[in-house]
């Protein structure tokens, strides 16, 4: 009973087949990167490959859904069968925005457990909030750096979520303001791991919005 877009299960050891073992024994994530910019696709692909990830890039949300077998109109399209462990999508794209893509993925029982990361050149808090509330794991400011990808990869591969007791609010990582918005679906374990992971990454991703605001301050360009 092949389910289109088989997802990464959080219980790693039982699903080792999800990853290919590289010769060094480390696990390889397969990342689907969605961006309408041809330049950005090339950069993100390189960032991911140099971080030992397998990468598939597509230029739109529609294509992403087709790849994941969820395009609705034609029914599941045969895709190349490679399980996707992480989706990274640009926010501003013509047609379907990254946010709309995120909603579609989180709205799919088959795909909702795939972590989705939003990338944007614009540091708009309302936008960030909206994405995190909708279930995005992270919101990265463009241009994406190698350190962002490394941190992301660590987080995804460390994987095993803590208990499901953490609410979606904590995942929002705001220093102030934990508004209690009720989440439509149970928060995936991955949300808590980002916060309650090891001390080193807790410090660094302490409040991703702190990092984001700091970046906003440093970023005089925008």
């Amino acid at each position, binding site marked *: 009973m092949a389910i289109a877009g088989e997802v990464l299960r959080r219980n790693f050891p039982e699903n080792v087949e999800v990853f290919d073992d590289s010769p060094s024994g480390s696990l390889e994530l397969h990342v689907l990167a969605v961006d309408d910019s*041809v330049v950005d696709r090339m950069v993100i692909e390189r960032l991911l490959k140099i971080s030992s990830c397998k990468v598939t890039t597509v230029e739109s949300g529609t294509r992403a859904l087709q790849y994941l077998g969820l395009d609705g109109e034609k029914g599941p399209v045969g895709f190349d069968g490679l399980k996707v462990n992480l989706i990274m999508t640009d926010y501003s794209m013509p047609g379907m925005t990254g946010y709309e893509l995120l909603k579609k993925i989180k709205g799919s029982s088959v795909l909702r457990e795939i972590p989705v990361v939003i990338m944007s050149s614009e540091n708009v808090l309302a936008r960030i909030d909206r994405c995190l509330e909708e279930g995005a794991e992270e919101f990265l400011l463009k241009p994406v750096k190698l350190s962002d990808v490394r941190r992301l990869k660590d987080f995804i591969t460390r994987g095993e979520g803590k208990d499901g007791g953490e609410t979606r609010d904590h995942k929002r990582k705001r220093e102030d303001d934990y508004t209690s918005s009720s989440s439509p679906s149970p928060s995936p374990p991955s949300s808590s791991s980002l916060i309650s992971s090891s001390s080193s990454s807790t410090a660094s991703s302490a409040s991703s919005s702190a990092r984001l605001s700091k970046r906003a301050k440093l970023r005089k360009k925008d």
Partner: protein
Amino acid sequence: MDGVAQLQKQLVDFTDSLFQEGFLDEQFNQLQQLQDESNPDFVVEVVSLFFEDSERLLNELAKALEQKTIDFRKVDAHVHQFKGSSSSIGAQRVQKVCIAFRNYCEEQNIEGCLKCLQQVKLEYSLVKNKLETLFKIEKQLIAAGGSIPT
């Protein structure tokens, strides 16, 4: 060895000047970090792609601003793309003009937009020129048996 050392110095000095004059920013360094023995031409490739894409965008912008009734949302969409790609390769001066350009789009200021189009064309051709020179020196250095200092 003398020739190589000289070329290396030329490369370092030239690169430094590009940063000092604001043509390039930190993102360009990030790109260089992504280049290695397995992908020795990454920077040239991505910059070439940027050139192609930019030329397309400049054409689109010129066309859009020639229309009798200007669709500012369309113009803005192109500028947004240009801002994004220039940011991705570290072309700081181009990116800055794009920011001003977007403001004029928002104000639906035709004159401002036209001025920015000229400015962005200029900045683009300047940085293109600079990068082509940079790549030329790198090529000479490698041909002389040297390696690009990291």
